[in-house]
């Protein structure tokens, strides 16, 4: 899961990494109390799970009450790259001498953890220059490696000790919380040479959630996504109006691509999963019926271990119970597809021999209905 800045900083603080004094609120009343407690000036920071906040004005300095009254509600209403502000972090500003970059991440290609550090922080990682890169196996960073990295990015004096301490703490956090990424960007070097984490990004491994009950409070899922997970399938809501259902993540992604190539837009990504049953697929259709913007349903199945009849029987039940009133366009291949086609023949589902034909028909139909 991707933690918001204030949540990442909560973890930093737990592991002894210094952060600026800050308070988090979700409404203007609490925000006012926080402002009073913190005292002006401070920074108002939108909490969203994407980068690029600064560019769109979702991080702003605030010097007095008038500015607060104007800016807090503005930022609270703001969206960054389509992500709504989840909360507001008010944070004290620090006297900064220099900004560094530091992260520890799961290097997929090399299959190990890797440190990236740079003397030039505060920009997105793609633009970070003079990167010092170190592979560190399972994520454990010993003192010697940390010192070498500190020196390579040009730190001197007490900043070296501070950096070693920060990196080792970040390493402990990465290992103990099973993070795929733990990034401090920027690390601020203060006038006295000490280091502080000005911004933080932590992404943990969702597959290790069962070992981390303590992180559950950070989990953010829509009701639909939560119900999907409980039933063993994946549902991701998207912007368009055609619901896409298939078996296998790759096949559904591929269907999304072809839909988009043909001028259609997906309302959701729904992978029924390898363990699909008529009940779980029925639950999936129930969830789709709750997505208001859906105007058509596109089904692409390559039956194997999950038989196409499993999905077909869920559709029959859904028709019987009047769960579906939207047009359905289906391409069924593989295990028991003849039987499935026979089952669906009498229903309103339109059957196609190729996914391309099904997509074309779905796009045309949805256009017609405006």
């Amino acid at each position: 899961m991707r933690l918001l800045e204030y949540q990442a900083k909560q973890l930093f603080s737990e592991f002894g990494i210094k952060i600026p004094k800050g308070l988090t609120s979700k409404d203007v009343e609490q925000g006012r109390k926080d402002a009073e407690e913190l005292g002006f000036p401070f920074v108002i920071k939108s909490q969203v799970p994407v980068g690029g906040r600064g560019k769109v004005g979702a991080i702003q300095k605030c010097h007095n009450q008038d500015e607060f009254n104007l800016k807090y509600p503005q930022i609270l209403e703001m969206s960054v790259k389509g992500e709504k502000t989840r909360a507001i972090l008010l944070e004290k500003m620090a006297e900064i001498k220099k900004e560094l970059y530091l992260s520890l991440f799961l290097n997929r290609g090399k299959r190990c953890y890797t440190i990236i550090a740079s003397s030039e922080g505060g920009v997105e990682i793609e633009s970070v220059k003079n990167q010092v890169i170190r592979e560190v196996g399972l994520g454990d960073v010993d003192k010697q490696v940390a010192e070498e990295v500190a020196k390579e990015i040009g730190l001197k004096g007490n900043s070296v000790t501070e950096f070693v301490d920060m990196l080792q703490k970040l390493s402990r956090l990465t290992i103990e919380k099973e993070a795929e990424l733990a990034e401090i960007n920027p690390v601020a070097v203060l006038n006295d040479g000490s280091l502080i984490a000005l911004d933080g990004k932590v992404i943990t491994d969702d597959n290790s959630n069962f070992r981390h009950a303590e992180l559950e409070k950070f989990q953010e899922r829509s009701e639909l996504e939560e119900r999907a997970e409980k039933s063993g399938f994946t549902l991701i809501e998207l912007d368009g109006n055609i619901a896409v259902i298939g078996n296998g993540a790759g096949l559904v992604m591929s269907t999304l691509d072809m839909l988009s190539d043909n001028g259609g837009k997906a309302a959701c990504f729904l992978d029924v999963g390898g363990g699909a049953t008529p009940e779980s697929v029925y639950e999936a259709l129930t969830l789709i019926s709750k997505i208001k913007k859906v105007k058509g349903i596109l089904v692409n199945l390559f039956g194997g271990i999950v038989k196409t009849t499993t999905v077909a029987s869920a559709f029959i039940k859904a028709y019987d119970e009047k769960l579906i009133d939207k047009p359905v366009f289906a391409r069924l291949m593989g295990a028991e597809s003849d039987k499935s086609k026979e089952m669906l023949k009498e229903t309103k589902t339109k059957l196609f021999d190729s996914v391309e034909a099904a997509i074309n028909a779905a796009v045309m139909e949805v256009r017609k209905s405006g």
Partner: protein
Amino acid sequence: MANIFELLQGKEGDADYNKKPVIVQGITGKFGSLHTKLMQEYGTNIVAGVTPGKGGQKFENIPIYNSVKEAVDATGSKISILFVPAKFFLGAAKEAIEAGIKLLVAIPEHVPVRDSLIMLDLAKKNDVIIIGPNTPGIMIPEIIKIGIMPASPFKSGDIALLSKSGTLMYEVANNLTEAGFGQTITLGIGGDPINGTRLIDAFEMVKDTPNLKGMVVVGEIGGDAEEVLAQRIIDSNFKKPIVAYIAGRAAPKEKRMGHAGAIVYGNYGSAESKISMFNKANIPVAKRPGEVAMLLAGKFEKSD
């Protein structure tokens, strides 16, 4: 590293040539039992199952043992396929490696990355090939199937098929088979961020196969396995026809698209990045799975 064909088939003249013994870990579970039957039907020589606490019993006439060690001692098998819940994955994988298994096909989805890394470390030290986790498996069509893929899309032939995704592997195999391109080997890399056998490793495993005529790579967004592979193909001067397909062009950034590994950060992991690297390696990239066989046929025409 051991030769994958030798592990899967053996050598002509071996007593168990094309009948290599395979162990199933988690044979009595819902998936383990179902797929044991399907693999047997396909002709895979399943010789033992492992379920702790059920040693001495039988499943479909296959003896069950309490540990992999006992199963290996009794059968001499070097191959195991693993069906256990993700929570118990690391323990089961370690047990297999320590018992002398040389090819481990790891089916489970949702294995924590840390567990995969620890397993891989151990596998390297013991010269073990891991396929997966989160893989549909590996097969030499019409000889041996160690995995959960349906049988019908695959046919024996001379094209190697490597895929991150399961269903897309079936889809593309079906497309190839219908066009007359059988497969010499089909290998599922798995949809996780950490793969026991990466695309590049799989390429190395199969590229020198004597009867190999061409290769198809089915990738998807996330990571840079496709880019690394494309670079390796350029560097190794591999001249046989290759065609690729990449899923996920329309996927939004920073969203995990069903597979744990299918996520784009910035340009890292994006379909554009992969497609442009394949283009650089002179490998055509299909826009849809149904186009793969056609592009491959085109490549063959040019190379003739």
